[in-house]
């Protein structure tokens, strides 16, 4: 099993370890609900070093990234980040990713751990004809996410950089605990927070995590695991590759047209998506909550007018919203807020209704 450079810290902090995409990572420490609600009210600390980082560098870096992703890369300025899709020719997802504009001619693409190898091969194959070098630097970087209202206060204890004025989806280079780092105002929780990328050996990485955890106590910031990471992103209405997005649903169907920019020259999937946009989609990703009791989980059958239409893509009990929530695809004429449909939970039909996402009220 692969270990992040923070692995030792998880054992020291008594994380409950599981295998996730080939990585030995904590699913929880003190408990999923406590960790989840800490992130919503004070803060949580995550080791997300398993995420993949790929560097595009060269004369045609902009053209290459623009061709293989869905968002408009030319709109980025150095120090800015955007969410984007790595799409197939059919307009479906190879993966979703963040694109960091490091400097003229250099971008960092952050992808899902489970897809790293597939993504990297795809990038080399599809962007190979551009004047650009594509390098997988995932093993060099550790990544710690500090998420929640108090995250800035904690981070400020360990860096001299002025992080307060940082806007969502921007990043700076600076030192954290004396270590060179990328400080990024991003996250996968729907909360104010930071993601810190840095290089260094196990000793440096574990120390960073443990010291953040120790100092974090002052601010109610606690170590959190993959369990809370998943329920937090779901309450925030964020898609997960393999659940909401995959290679059989298009970016338009996944309700992510805001990261799809047609006016930017050629890119993979453009023709199919233009056509689908003109003709209109027949199904769309929606958020739901259960009207009846129970919890609808990933893979449970979804019924519309008595016929099975699909499956729940993600579902859980939302520890902060205190409701049974989830996401699924529905026929386009059944996606209005309030529309009811059925989910089969262990041989029982349970009523759900379409609600607005995010499930949390982000003010």
């Amino acid at each position, binding site marked *: 099993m692969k270990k992040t450079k923070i692995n030792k810290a998880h054992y020291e902090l008594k994380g409950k370890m599981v295998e996730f995409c080939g990585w030995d990572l904590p*699913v*929880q420490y003190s*408990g*999923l*609900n*406590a960790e*989840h609600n800490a992130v919503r009210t004070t803060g949580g600390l995550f080791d997300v070093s398993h995420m993949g980082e790929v560097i595009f560098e060269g004369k045609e870096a902009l053209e290459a990234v623009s061709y293989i992703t869905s968002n408009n890369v030319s709109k980025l300025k150095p120090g800015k980040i955007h969410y984007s899709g790595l799409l197939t020719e059919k307009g479906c997802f190879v993966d979703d990713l963040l694109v960091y504009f490091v400097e003229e001619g250099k971008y960092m693409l952050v992808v899902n751990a489970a897809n790293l190898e597939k993504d990297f091969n795809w990038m080399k194959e599809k962007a190979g004809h551009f004047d650009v070098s594509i390098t997988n630097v995932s093993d060099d970087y550790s990544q710690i996410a500090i998420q929640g209202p108090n995250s800035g206060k904690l981070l400020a204890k360990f860096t001299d950089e002025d992080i307060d004025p940082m806007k969502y989806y921007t990043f700076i280079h600076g030192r954290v605990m004396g270590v060179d780092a990328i400080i990024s105002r991003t996250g996968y929780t729907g909360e104010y927070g930071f993601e810190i990328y840095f290089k260094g050996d196990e000793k440096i990485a574990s120390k960073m995590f443990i010291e953040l955890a120790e100092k974090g106590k002052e601010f109610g910031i606690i170590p959190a695991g993959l*369990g809370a990471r*998943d*329920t937090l992103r779901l309450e925030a209405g964020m898609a997960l590759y393999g659940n909401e997005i995959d290679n059989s649903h298009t970016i338009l169907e996944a309700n992510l047209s805001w990261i799809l920019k047609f006016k930017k020259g050629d890119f993979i999937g453009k023709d199919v998506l233009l056509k689908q946009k003109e003709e209109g989609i027949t199904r769309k990703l929606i958020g739901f909550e259960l009207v009846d*009791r*129970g*919890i609808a*989980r990933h893979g449970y059958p979804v019924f519309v007018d008595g016929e099975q239409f699909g499956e729940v893509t993600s579902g*859980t*009990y939302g*520890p902060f919203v205190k409701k*049974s929530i989830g996401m699924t695809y529905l026929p386009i004429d059944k996606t209005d807020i309030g529309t009811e449909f059925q989910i089969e939970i*262990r041989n029982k039909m349970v009523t759900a209704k379409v609600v607005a996402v995010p499930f949390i009220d982000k003010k």
Partner: protein
Amino acid sequence: MGLENLKFTKEHEWVRVEDGIATIGVTDYAQKELGDIVYVELPSVGDSIAKGDACSNIESVKAVSDLYSQLSGEIVEINEGLEDTPENINQSPYDDGWIVKIKISKEEELNEMMDFEQYKLYLAGIEKE
């Protein structure tokens, strides 16, 4: 309460028998493994169940697990309070977190269960793995 008076199963359920009625719940080890419990589906009073039947459904935020009855009999009482406070299973697995009461029809099934000392050894074995 005295754990010494309980019987235990390999599935980490506990059973307390009084006058032919078995009160069933899950052990402290089980509630920790399950994590934060947020929903419990209970059977109906009057249901008859055979050994090995699922008699309740316990859902934590991340997982769902069935409670398989290790006893045959009839459901005579359910802990309705769990519908509103399922977290009682986490907070008080041996008292407020009890799940169902069964009128035992095959008393010999109790003989297959462990006593507290045996269960402690069983747990020690699991934790060594």
